[in-house]
């Protein structure tokens, strides 16, 4: 029997707003101390938002990708570290729930994510590989029904606070670098040897330290599908969409602050248009571009859902790459514009118009899977695939 708890009677957006309120309160501290956004993530869990994307039959709420993206954008307005932690967790869930059908272990684990509000991390980046998601050096070692894996993982966000980590590797020690699998290890099945500290310009609260990952688990925890398919049909697209959503959130909060600044100036001298008003109009137009980009991508993703051919088509990959490039660049222009509007009040920390954190957090967007790498991939695809030129498709 399934009795709706009071929390699920509220809309997802309302629950996200309540969590965001808590996250916003701690955003500056989390950033300054470069620590895990514990209060924000505890609030997200209290709102039971961790498993919303998981199908109802596995204990979730079957939320659409658009609904998940909206939660990311709401959290992004409040605290980018909380939003990024949440978004990366949802990216792992998308891979798990779409690509491990009929795997009893993974289905049971999805249920656990909902019941226990577990947080899933990701270890794709590896020493010697950089951000090339589709290559691995390390390989799983399967002996009987046990899988062992050691990975020199250069960046694992919230690694120390995750309840499980999905790790990519080669399928076998003799496999080529691109023949990969993904394996989910739970916290009791791995150790993390700390190798690098995450002391960065922005996104400081993601605590994306480097570790040597060493895991041992039942072999059934290897995802049955090749990672190549998971990456093409889910991970890349969902990453760009959910990142885009939270980056929109960061920029939207910057525009909110700039608008308050302009309004305050207008109130002080009625009858005169404040000097920042024109720039605000421009920022508003750029923000709308980012929004349209993400929303169009979500529509395309949802239209292709359940159709592996549509999701692995080149035109689709080009579209998703373009969303990443467009949003990651435009948010910087927007926040910079807002900084010009707010002037020193925006440059200073601790004012209602402070934008330093926004700008620093936003700078990670271009590097998070390097835009140059993505443009390189798109340019290869455009050698054969046709650019989509219809307006409505």
């Amino acid at each position, binding site marked *: 029997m399934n009795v709706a708890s009071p929390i699920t009677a509220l809309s997802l957006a309302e629950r996200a707003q309540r969590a965001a309120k808590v996250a916003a309160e701690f955003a500056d501290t989390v950033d300054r101390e470069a620590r895990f956004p514990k209060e924000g993530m505890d609030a997200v869990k209290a709102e039971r938002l961790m498993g919303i994307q998981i199908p109802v039959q596995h204990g979730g709420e079957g939320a659409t990708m658009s609904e998940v993206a909206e939660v990311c954008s709401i959290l992004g307005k409040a605290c980018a570290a909380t939003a990024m932690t949440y978004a990366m967790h949802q990216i792992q869930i998308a891979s798990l729930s779409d690509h491990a059908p009929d795997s009893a272990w993974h289905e049971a684990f999805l249920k656990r994510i909902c019941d226990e509000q577990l947080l899933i991390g990701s270890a794709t980046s590896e020493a010697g590989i950089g951000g090339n998601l*589709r290559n691995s050096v390390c390989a799983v070692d399967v002996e009987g029904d046990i899988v062992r894996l050691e990975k020199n993982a250069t960046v694992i966000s919230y690694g120390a606070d995750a309840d499980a980590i999905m790790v990519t590797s080669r*399928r076998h020690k003799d*496999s*080529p*670098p*691109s*023949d990969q699998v993904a394996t989910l290890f739970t916290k009791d099945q791995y150790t993390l040897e700390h190798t690098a500290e995450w002391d960065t310009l922005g996104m400081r609260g993601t605590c994306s330290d480097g570790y040597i990952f060493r895991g041992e688990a039942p072999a059934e925890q290897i995802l049955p599908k*090749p990672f*190549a*398919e998971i990456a*093409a049909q889910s991970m890349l697209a969902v990453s760009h969409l959910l990142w885009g959503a939270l980056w929109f959130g960061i920029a939207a909060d910057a525009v909110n602050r700039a608008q308050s600044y302009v309004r305050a100036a207008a109130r002080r001298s009625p009858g005169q248009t404040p000097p920042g008003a024109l720039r605000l109009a421009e920022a508003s137009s750029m923000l709308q571009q980012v929004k349209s980009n993400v929303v169009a991508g979500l529509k395309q993703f949802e239209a292709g859902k359940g159709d592996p*051919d549509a999701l*692995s*088509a*080149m*035109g689709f990959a080009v579209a998703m790459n373009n969303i990443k490039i467009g949003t990651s660049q435009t948010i910087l222009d927007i926040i910079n514009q807002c900084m010009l509007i707010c002037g020193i009040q925006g440059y200073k920390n601790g004012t209602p118009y402070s934008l330093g954190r926004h700008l620093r957090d936003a700078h990670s967007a271009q590097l998070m899977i390097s835009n140059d790498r993505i443009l390189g*991939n798109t340019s*290869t*695809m455009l*050698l*054969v*695939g*046709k650019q989509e030129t219809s307006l409505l498709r």
Partner: protein
Amino acid sequence: MNSTIRDLLTKHGRLPVSVDTIADDADLYEAGLSSFASVQLMLGLEEAFDIEFPETLLNRKSFSSINAIAASVSQITETQQVA
């Protein structure tokens, strides 16, 4: 046709193993075909067979094995001759 495909695979596939050791139905991605190499291979096929891959065949499945490539090429030559 499969021997032309094998020649092109040798030239563009950048595989870590010899193409001779790969069966017609073996998974090329498991053999190490990358997405970059598959695009180069596709360009090679277009040139060799004087065809153009339609959007519907620009996906992983079309390049998953030598047989799959042959099937895609045949399908294209048929429809493009009719057209």
